[in-house]
């Protein structure tokens, strides 16, 4: 099967983007932090989220997630 130049480029791009994400846990932390923040702010006032990636055994990556807040919102009251 013959690929066009565009298809070769698309395949290379796909590979590069996947590898970038696999090899870059710091950036993944930033994305996770943002998503977790959006969930956390529904339940608490001004949450501070920290996400840390640590290399575990057998090549796995462990994400340590800490959410701190001074005040929990009343149950049933969700953010707009």
């Amino acid at each position, binding site marked *: 099967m013959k690929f066009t*130049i565009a298809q070769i480029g698309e395949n290379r*791009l796909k590979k590069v983007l996947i590898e970038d994400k696999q090899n870059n846990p710091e950036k993944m932390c930033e994305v996770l932090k*943002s998503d977790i923040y959006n969930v956390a702010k529904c339940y608490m006032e001004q949450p501070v989220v920290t996400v840390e990636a640590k290399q575990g055994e057998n090549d796995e990556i462990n994400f340590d997630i800490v959410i701190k807040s001074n005040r929990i919102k009343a149950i049933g009251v969700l953010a707009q």
Partner: protein
Amino acid sequence: MARKIVFTSGKGGVGKTTVCANLGATLSNLGFRVVILDVDIGLNNLDVVMGIENRVVFDIIDVIEGRCRATQALVQDNNFENLYVLPSAHSYRGEEVSARDIKNVVDSLDNGFDYIFIDCPAGVEQGFKRAVSCASEAVVVVTPHISSIRDADKVLSILSSYNLNQKYLVINRVRGDLLMNGEMIDVDEIIKFLHTQILGVVPEDDDITALSSIGALGGSVSNRAWMLLAENLHNGTKKVYDCTQKYKGFFGTLRRNIKRRL
């Protein structure tokens, strides 16, 4: 209250300043008051792109350091009466400016304009953070090249950690003939890879290069694309320019073949 939109890309040379200036010009033509802030401190280019470099009296550093008000530093465009530029300084150490400084400047312009565009420097360092932190929306400019798309993907990941209401994608310098020949990464594929709402597609336009030399905006091929982009930004029309249109059909194929031979 103005919409505060940062134009970023990660990679340099993809046309952030060009997109920012032309979109601003098109919106101002539609009657909106637009101000463009050049926050690339030390490497300012917006003034020369827009042909106002000889009319700059104050710059953003003068505003930050209190030598003038933000409105006094604005330069009105030569051709678009609703378009203003707040120029950057050409010799200043950028690290001395904080995100809070830029935010104060942006906030001081909030009431007088419909749109505040922030032209972000290339890279994801301090200058990027300063520019993004005072915006509520972001436009990521990308070209159909692997290096640009890769950097845009990284920038989009970083933007996720900022409190932005919306992120858009503008695909710049698209060549319809190469798309039709299967020699350029397809626009739909780029959108799929980057998972971001498309704001517009801008064709490669030799006029942009030529006009930038004389400090003018616009371009015969890209004019329609700028208009669609502006309408999409303002009204959410979701219409984007089809760069392949003029290369379809009998005459389109002819045009493609001639272009290839040239």
